[in-house]
């Protein structure tokens, strides 16, 4: 059995910027061009800044893991444009359900990215409150592949049922965006999410980052058809976008989120990108993929491409230097704050297993406290 690479759909992916940063929209980009007009020069620079800052954060987290400070790190290097473009396309009232690699999406929505560090250090299973206004409706990471797609679809069903979408008021109408990967498309839950979304015409965008590899298994083993066709098969409007083009990622996502909010039902976006790093720090990609493949994608790097375009647009060198400084500061701050993290007291473990009083939680919490007290007395003797 061969695993011939299948990365493109029946038409060219939506693209505005070529790999070397020239503004040359693909024919498929035409319906999305108007969405780009919403972006100011400040927005462009913010996109660039977010990509550079998160890459520095991501790199620092990887080093912290190598130094034994984190249990695990799932790097996002290479996927910055897909994530930054789509995240900025969401409105504040929208809800975002991530997978576990969308660090910059969380940062853009407002969570403290140290919460992700805490999780990967083994201090929490996430723990932030998506409903806290500071956290921008950014839901917790989900580690069981694809499970979050059903939660997102259920949430979107709720938006329809409580009349929070499709009223025609873009400031009020809400939509849901859910992130998942190429491997997840093989999961039953993702397919069931497509089915429920199509059946109930939910206001949601399925944002697939096809980073070509599900740990060591190439996308061709997940699907014999371009993944964008999967959405179409469920009756969901589907589009393929160059996920390493931050402008294309933004424009396509903004347009389809608008469609979802306006009552157009679910939408499916396949963003073609590449996981430049390992799946996680436990992985060794040299065992399953070639340097030539890696280099071909590094040549399409989302940050270099966008920098070239910004420079052509006249962004001064001082801007880029400032971003580099800020990125270094964020990395240093991440290190400093990671090393200062303290473990919460163990009795907290029993506090939030249930929302309501539970006799077993009370009994075991009390037992543990008594046991630890005894042990301390024993140590003292």
């Amino acid at each position: 059995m061969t695993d011939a690479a299948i990365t493109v759909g029946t038409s060219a992916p939506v693209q505005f910027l070529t790999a070397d940063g020239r503004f040359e929209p693909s024919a498929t980009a035409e319906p999305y061009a108007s969405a780009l007009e919403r972006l100011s020069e400040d927005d462009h620079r913010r996109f660039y800044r977010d990509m550079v800052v998160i890459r520095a954060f991501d790199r620092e987290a990887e080093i912290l893991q190598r130094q034994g400070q984190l249990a695990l790190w799932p790097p996002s290097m290479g996927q910055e444009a897909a994530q930054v473009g789509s995240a900025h396309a969401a409105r504040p009232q929208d809800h975002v359900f991530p997978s576990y690699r969308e660090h910059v999406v969380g940062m853009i929505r407002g969570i403290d990215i140290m919460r992700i560090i805490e999780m990967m250090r083994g201090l929490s299973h996430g723990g932030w409150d998506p409903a806290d206004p500071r956290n921008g409706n950014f839901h917790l990471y989900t580690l069981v592949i694809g499970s979050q797609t059903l939660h997102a679809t259920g949430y979107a069903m709720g938006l329809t049922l409580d009349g929070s979408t499709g009223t025609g008021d873009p400031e009020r109408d809400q939509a849901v965006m859910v992130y998942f990967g190429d491997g997840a498309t093989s999961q039953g839950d993702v397919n069931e999410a497509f089915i429920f979304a199509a059946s109930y015409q939910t206001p949601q965008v399925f944002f697939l980052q096809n980073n070509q590899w599900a740990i060591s298994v190439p996308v061709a083993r997940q699907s014999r058809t371009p993944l964008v066709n999967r959405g179409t098969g469920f009756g969901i409007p589907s589009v393929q976008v160059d996920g390493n083009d931050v402008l294309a990622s933004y424009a396509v996502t903004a347009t389809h989120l608008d469609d979802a909010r306006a009552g157009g039902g679910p939408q499916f976006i396949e963003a073609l990108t590449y996981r430049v790093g390992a799946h996680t720090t436990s992985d060794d990609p040299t065992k399953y993929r070639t340097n030539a493949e890696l280099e071909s994608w590094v040549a399409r790097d989302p940050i270099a491409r966008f920098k070239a375009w910004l420079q052509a647009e006249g962004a001064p060198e001082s801007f880029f230097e400032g971003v580099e400084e800020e990125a270094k500061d964020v990395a240093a701050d991440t290190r400093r704050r990671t090393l200062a993290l303290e473990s919460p007291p163990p009795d907290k473990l029993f506090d939030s297993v249930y929302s309501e009083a539970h006799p077993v939680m009370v009994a075991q919490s009390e037992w543990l406290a008594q046991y630890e007290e005894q042990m301390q007395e024993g140590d003292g003797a």
Partner: protein
Amino acid sequence: MTDHSPSQRTVDETTDAATPVATATTSTGRPTGIQTLPMSRAINAGLAQAMRDDDRVLLMGEDIGRLGGVFRVTEGLQAEFGENRVLDTPLAESGIVGTAIGLAMRGFRPVCEIQFDGFIFPAFDQITTQLAKLTARHEGSLSLPVVIRVPYGGHIGAIEHHQESPEAYFAHTPGLRVVSPASPNDAYWMMQEAIASNDPVLFFEPKSRYWAKGEVDFGASAVPLHASRVVRTGTDVTVLAHGAMVTVLLQAAELSQAEGISLEVVDLRSLSPIDYGPILESVRKTGRLIVAQEAPGFVSVGSEVAATVAEQAFYSLEAPVLRVSGFDIPFPPAKFEHVYLPDADRILEAVDRALAY
């Protein structure tokens, strides 16, 4: 089968599933008084009441709307509350529970029906890795008031996957609450209490009791959701079960009485958490305990009760705690279910063994 227990207040007569319930109501619309209903109608009345009390309560499942469910438990509810409150879902159990989680995140209180016990396993991942853990994962900021109704158990002569008792899997899972009513009155009240709970509740409905009638007191809940309860007092041996097996214990108690042996029957009602107060009190009185269940005995709810009672009431026990369970085999073809499922004779055999110590 005939049930002679006044405390259980059930009689086995099949009834028209469309029997209207709760004709008398208070000025607030709540039904009043006492009515005799089969358990399926009592659950229906409990669901309807919960839906009237809180418009965030939704029902979702396969065939529950227009058909009213394969057991007609939800009959008439879509007509009363509309398609936005009673959702006929696609045929996908994981999808049902997974979207119910999302709906609960949005503030709804979904009540999912799994059509049969043996079909809950496609949803097992969403129930155990997501539903059970999300409150802890959110460090308490998120409540997930999701009820999963599961018609379960044998005695109905059905084909494979339609007669099982999978409750131990869920009782074993932290973050879930697991209950099972044995009588129409408990079914009516426990359903409303389960829906009112801010935690996920697995609600196991003993499907062989769906058609058995009993009195439902619309005036007041008998005991809290997670309370166990003595349903027949006795002095010689305590026998304990949940769901349909409670009826078998009551039969055994009748038969024993004729032989001069007095059984005290405890209805567990809640499998997680387990209310040990009445159980221990009973065991301290009788000194003997038999735990009965339809499920296989290995790593079962009955095993857990036996272990805990041995720990907590060791000096009161005159005999080891005995389990009477389904055999540790896949649920057999229906013609063998009378061999597989514990009946009153199997209970009485264990009573004799317990008394022999």
